[in-house]
């Protein structure tokens, strides 16, 4: 291992910061120290790759197919650093040579193909940030280049790869496109459908490398080090990256979890964990959370809603509270009919404003009935949409009331409920918070 001081001098040399005599001295040392020479070559390789990557952002094909420098580098005089050849500039130089000779190789056409490696289609109200090789894409283009990082905080995105691979990514997710054939899933839940021509498509997480062998599969990457692969059709090869390699071929109906101990553990495949079709709205992506009496729900989160209590015990179900952040649905299912009281709940002042369109949400009684509405201040309107579905709207827009409405005094009573769904459409901005309380069990 070489000293940091030596490596520092190597970078100074590559940066053009050493005098001729200093360079000569360094090279004499490199000649005598093979390890230092190795590091020098690796640093030069890193330098070339960084230049290539950094400059590939500066060049884009214009409409006529010519290479155009669109932005950056306002001042290129007086450089000490070497000018570099960006990927496309390189292609242009090769193209020039070939054009002169009247030849056009198929590979060159491939290099000039304007089709993005990956295009994506977010559901309405999906929130994401896109960074192309370190720079935020302020134009919010819906395509990924090699190196693009996509962070999804809410909603669902469908990715379409040039190779024909289709993927649905569910928030929260953080991914990087390595190249047209490899996706790095740092966190998130993703479903993939890979056509035959794209066999070899690879998904990498911190804990798993998954190579497709012609299939349909799902990957879950969690921050806690648990990574899962679920195969629904065909085969994949799953392995643990790193020294303690474990590799296994998985067929349809098989799943593995790579845990923090480095083991690939057999788990039950779950197609329900993945969305396989791009939803038309965020609300539709909300997987209902079913709270069955006799079961426990521990810190479970769905899309578009969060349970504000970490633990809702339904063994002796009395009450619960939850928030729909943007659009989502929560379903309460009881093993026996109960009487329920539903009211709005507090939303902290530091959260986003909610219900600015006065539309609070909707509740649908799958089995049971709406027995009474208590609204002494006449602040809410319950509008029947059908016999079992009701729209819940505020009638008095007031910022204070919107955040902390006098909901304690307004509530609805429901009778003989077996199943109730509370939902909020994503098209209505803000959040909605509900409380429910079991008044009595109808069991005699």
């Amino acid at each position, binding site marked *: 291992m070489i000293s940091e001081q030596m490596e520092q001098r190597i970078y100074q040399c590559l940066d*053009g910061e050493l005098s001729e005599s200093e360079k000569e001295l360094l090279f004499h040392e490199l000649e005598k120290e093979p390890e230092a020479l190795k590091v020098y070559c690796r640093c030069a390789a890193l330098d070339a790759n960084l230049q290539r990557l950094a400059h590939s952002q500066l060049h884009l094909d214009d409409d006529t197919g010519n290479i155009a420098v669109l932005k950056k580098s306002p001042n290129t005089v007086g450089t000490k650093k070497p*000018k570099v050849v960006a990927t496309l500039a390189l292609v242009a130089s090769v193209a020039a040579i070939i054009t002169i000779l009247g030849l056009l190789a198929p590979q060159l056409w491939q290099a000039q193909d304007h089709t993005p490696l990956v295009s994506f289609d977010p559901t309405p109200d999906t929130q994401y940030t896109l960074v192309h090789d370190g720079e935020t894409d302020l134009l919010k283009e819906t395509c990924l280049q090699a190196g693009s990082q996509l962070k999804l905080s809410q909603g669902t995105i469908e990715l379409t790869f040039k190779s024909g691979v289709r993927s649905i990514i569910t928030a929260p997710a953080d991914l990087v496109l390595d190249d047209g054939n490899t996706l790095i899933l740092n966190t998130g839940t993703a479903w993939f459908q890979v056509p035959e021509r794209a066999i070899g498509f690879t998904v990498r997480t911190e804990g798993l490398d998954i190579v497709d062998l012609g299939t349909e599969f799902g990957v879950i990457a969690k921050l806690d080090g648990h990574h899962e692969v679920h195969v629904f059709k065909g085969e994949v090869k799953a392995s643990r990256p790193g020294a303690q390699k474990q590799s296994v071929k998985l067929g349809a109906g098989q799943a593995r979890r790579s845990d923090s101990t480095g083991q690939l553990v057999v788990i039950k495949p779950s197609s329900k964990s993945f969305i396989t079709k791009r939803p038309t709205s965020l609300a539709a992506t909300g997987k209902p959370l079913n709270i069955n009496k006799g079961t426990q729900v521990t810190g479970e989160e769905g899309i578009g809603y969060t349970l504000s209590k970490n633990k809702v015990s339904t063994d002796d179900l009395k009450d619960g509270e939850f928030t729909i952040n943007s659009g989502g649905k929560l379903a309460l299912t009881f093993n026996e009919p109960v009487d329920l009281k539903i009211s709005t709940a507090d939303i902290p002042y530091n959260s986003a404003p909610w219900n600015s369109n006065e539309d609070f949400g909707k509740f649908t009684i799958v089995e049971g009935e709406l027995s009474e509405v208590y609204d002494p201040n006449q602040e809410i309107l319950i509008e029947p949409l059908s016999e079992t579905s009701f729209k819940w709207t505020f009638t008095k827009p007031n910022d204070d009331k919107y955040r902390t409405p006098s909901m304690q005094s307004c509530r609805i009573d429901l009778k003989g409920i077996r199943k109730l769904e509370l939902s909020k459409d994503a098209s209505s901005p803000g959040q909605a918070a509900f409380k429910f309380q079991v008044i009595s069990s109808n069991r005699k």
Partner: protein
Amino acid sequence: MDNSSTSPISQDAHENEADGAYVTLLTQHQVNIQAFITSLLPGDPDIEDVLQRTNIVLWNKREQFEQNTNFKAWAFSIARWETKAWLTEKKRKDWLVFNDELTDQMAEQFQESIPDQKNEDMLPSLRRCLTRLSDNERFLIFNYYQADKSIAECAAIVKKTEGALRVALFRIRISLRRCIESHLAGKEVTS
């Protein structure tokens, strides 16, 4: 009778195919050639010119290249020759480039310690390692490499002192190099 092997169309197709394969090699090894020229002319603003010259010679000599032989070694020998020729034209004397023994060792290093497989993987590994940097670190490194400027000039742009930027860039590049090497080492073990 099948005349296809002798027809002009077939010959053209064959040539186009060979040229296509050659362009693939040339494109695949661009970053290697660039890295090798960078190691021969560290900190020189004319690396691009030498690379362009090398590319032109490589293209003109494409028919001399024997398929399935070591393209990289061949490209490096041309790159070294072109670097020397360019320095001679510029009437510059560069101790390193004219030290055949050391440049031989460098070429060997690029062949041995950074084999093709690793070079192909280096860019994806670099991308992955870049995502592990903080936003500020990414901003610094991209600004430096995009601006084509000296550290002193770049320091003024990013509003840092020259010393602070030098240290920051050094730390970032050390961490990137180590990250890439550990990533590639992992892949080597698993492959």
